[in-house]
């Protein structure tokens, strides 16, 4: 959060419509995503009740568990969902040496496309990857649990399940884990993706309701965001987008229908009618969220894609390829919890991804960069003077090209002389701050506030130099090899420029011991995880 987003919220409230907080799209939107809207039975850890799933907005697959406490029916649900998801995943060739589609490892009979050669060590990055959308973060949490409760199952033995069930569990686990990885777009929550791009006139807590969030972003023609968001809170008109159901629905509708199914089962007759009635009621609860999730995808798709999105999607594709290969190679399921080394590795990777994401978003999007400008970590303004051909004698005695540029800015500048900045979009250029000189009355900038004259210059934009700062920068690098800058590599007078302390630099992974070298401070080497019978027949009640 920042003043910028906060102001956008205030503006949204007054305008009755969400305001953009991004000028480009920061998430990848697949051409053919898969939407999964699950419902769970209240009071249970992970009892699927129903779901809508599929990659065709016009043709959702409705899955219903008539008796959510029945283990057999739960596994039937998982198998059905598994087939649906693996059919979708199977459509993405997962790289590797002339392999079948990724899902094919499990879904016998789904023949994928071959994907080029690819050697033993070097795996080709798959050309595309699946993308699964849920309405909200809680949906991803449910997915994670569903993955956890199915991935250790086995297709043979005493508690055998449909072979597709453990494969589903491993994919769901992979996707849910990956969704925690900063910048990853393999599994997304619609509410979070939207909130990254729009600020509403309500609180972030209320934005967790997808219907109300979309009410602000895209209200119906006859009303405004405020009204639409309020209307969206009526559980009768807009059932919650899951996985929790509305208690009123549970008590007044669902309980009766489940009981009817039970009786029909016991009594032998009426079963079809009871099941149909239950399915219809659950479809009524799911359908609005299904449509809203697709609308969210559409809203996001309409935004132009940010420059670094494709790069991050490539990392996702690579991760997808790895996991597909792991499955193909008969690797074990993901363990219950990370070992010490695995946890530290993952944290390191997440921290590097988070740092990189923050920088990339700022470089891609002036509105995000503005947050850094407000914080004094970047500045933007107009060039008032430039000395593009300046050459000095460097420390080594060589003559080097060091142009000077004077930038005049309204931004609250807090960089100090000597700081090295970088211009977004010119990765090889550096700009060293030579001097910072406030022009006119001080105090309008936040960081420079001394409280002395803060109230001056209320007349708004335009007028004069009040609150402006002049910054002189010395450029180096990215201007070609000669002592005159390559054309266009040094800004000219009148150009609008931006310089920031941010830099998207590759950070190598930190070195950690091998798991079998885990030191005594961290419990010593863990027993390598091996799935057990115990895991496979774990109760799911």
């Amino acid at each position, binding site marked *: 959060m920042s003043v910028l987003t906060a*102001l956008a919220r205030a503006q949204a409230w007054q305008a009755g419509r969400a305001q953009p907080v991004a000028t480009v799209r920061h998430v990848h939107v697949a051409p053919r995503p898969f939407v999964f809207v699950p419902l769970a039975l209240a009071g249970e850890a992970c009892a699927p009740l129903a779901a809508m799933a599929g990659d065709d907005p016009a043709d959702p697959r409705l899955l219903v568990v008539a008796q959510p406490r029945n283990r057999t029916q739960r596994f039937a649900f998982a198998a059905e969902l598994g087939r649906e998801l693996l059919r979708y995943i199977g459509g993405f060739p997962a790289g590797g040496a002339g392999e079948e589609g990724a899902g094919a490892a499990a879904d016998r009979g789904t023949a994928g496309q071959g994907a080029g050669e690819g050697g033993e060590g070097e795996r080709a990055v798959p050309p595309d990857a699946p993308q699964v959308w849920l309405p909200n973060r809680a949906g991803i949490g449910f997915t994670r649990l569903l993955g956890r409760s199915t991935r250790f199952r086995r297709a043979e033995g005493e508690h055998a399940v449909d072979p597709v069930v453990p494969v589903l569990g491993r994919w769901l686990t992979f996707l849910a884990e990956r969704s925690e990885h900063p910048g990853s777009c393999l599994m997304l929550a619609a509410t979070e993706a939207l909130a990254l791009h729009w600020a509403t006139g309500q609180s972030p807590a209320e934005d967790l309701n997808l219907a109300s969030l979309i009410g602000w972003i895209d209200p119906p023609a006859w009303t405004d965001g405020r009204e639409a968001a309020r209307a969206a809170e009526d*559980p009768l008109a807009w059932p919650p987008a899951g996985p929790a159901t509305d208690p009123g629905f549970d008590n007044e509708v669902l309980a009766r229908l489940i009981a009817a199914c039970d009786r029909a089962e016991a009594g032998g007759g009426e079963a079809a009618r009871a099941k149909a009635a239950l399915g219809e009621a659950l479809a009524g609860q799911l359908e609005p969220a299904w449509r809203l999730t697709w609308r969210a995808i559409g809203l996001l798709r309409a935004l132009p894609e940010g420059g670094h999105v494709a790069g991050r999607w490539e990392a996702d594709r690579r991760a997808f390829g790895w996991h597909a290969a792991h499955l193909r190679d008969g690797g074990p399921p993901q363990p219950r919890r990370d070992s010490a080394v695995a946890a530290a590795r993952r944290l390191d990777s997440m921290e590097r991804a988070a740092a990189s994401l923050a920088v990339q978003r700022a470089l891609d999007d002036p509105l995000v960069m503005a947050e850094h400008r407000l914080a004094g970590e970047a500045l933007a303004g107009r060039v008032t003077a430039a000395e593009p051909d300046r050459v000095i004698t460097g420390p080594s005695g060589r003559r080097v090209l060091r142009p000077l540029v004077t930038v005049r800015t309204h931004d609250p500048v807090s960089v100090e002389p000597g700081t090295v900045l970088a211009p977004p979009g010119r990765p090889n250029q550096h700009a060293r701050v030579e001097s910072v000189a406030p022009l006119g009355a001080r105090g309008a900038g936040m960081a420079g506030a001394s409280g002395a004259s803060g109230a001056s210059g209320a007349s708004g934009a335009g007028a004069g130099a009040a609150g402006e700062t002049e910054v002189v920068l010395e450029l180096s690098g990215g201007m070609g090899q000669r002592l005159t800058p390559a054309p266009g590599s040094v800004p000219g007078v009148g150009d609008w420029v931006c310089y920031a302390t941010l830099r998207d630099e590759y950070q190598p992974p930190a070195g950690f011991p091998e798991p079998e070298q885990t030191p005594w401070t961290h419990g010593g080497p863990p027993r390598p995880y091996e799935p057990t019978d115990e895991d496979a027949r774990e109760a799911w009640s």
Partner: protein
Amino acid sequence: MNAVEARLDRLRGSAAPRAHNARTISALASNPGCARRAVMDAAGVDKQRVAAHVGHPAPFGQSQFAITRGNAFEAQVKAGGCAQLLRLLRERLRLPIPEVSYANLDDVAGDTSNKVRHARTRALLARAAASGQDAGTLFDHPLLRLRAGGRAVYLEPDLIAFQLRGRFHVVEIKSFAVIDGQADGGKVAAAVIQSAVYVLALRDLLAELGTGPEAVSDEVVLVCPKDFSNEPTAALLDVRKQLTVLRRQLARLDRIEDLLAQIPQAVTFDLEPDAAGVPRRDRRALELAIGAVPARYTPECLETCEMCRFCREEAAGSTAALGRATRDDLGGIDDIGTVLELARGSVPPADHQAEAAAAIRAAARMRGEILGATG
């Protein structure tokens, strides 16, 4: 009846008071700065009905599936003389094998009145605290009492276990799952603060009997289903932090007259029900009465307080309604209109707003500059 009680009764009006319980006492800590909630709870007002009468009922409710599951799990853990619970206590807390004595305090020979149950609880716990020998181990649904805001509140823990390392332990049985050692942090927090209320009440009871607070452990036992099964698992949770919070909030509750002094005498939340129990109070008058007691609305209230929808409506147009972080980022300026005027520069900021205004103007300038350019 003292003056404060009389005043509280007037505020509530003709309805029977809703007694505090462990949940409402825990809720004292969820928005302690809100005078409206403090006063309405102290007076025992049925907030949901009041909120409904002014057209803003809170969308709270519990699914019967969740209730059934909760009851079934507790019954299962306690079945067969708390057979499953005994196993957990033995395995996790080294409860000695001979310690199996069980007393059910749900009723006393069929009498389920609070008074009788509390008296019986007191008698049994007094015997346990005093002798230690043949003192009883498991007390199922004891009824404790705590003074809150000058009133006695009856509280019913799931179970109290004695002879765990010679101390009383509060046992709380919840039906949310602990999966691979992890549970929902919010649900655990709620269970912990609720258990802390019981610890306080139990210490009060023992104090009356001349036993010191150290007889009650400040660790409580939380029993939950393990992973996706019905098998129970137990965890020990430290409630010292919650105890200090509760003590402070209960002390504040005792100073309710300070809050009452600021409310006009005529204010009442009476719904004026007719003979059939249908509320007849003029809606506008009730709104004014509610409005006479200041609220401290934050969006978090939407999770916890029955008055939330009313207060949110009242707070519309304030930065508080946009969330804590937003209000903070806007330099604590309360009103959205003011923020936007400052952003436009259409009014000069008051002295104390100068810095906030400068930041807001800078933000507005940047947004204009960027969005103006890109459309």
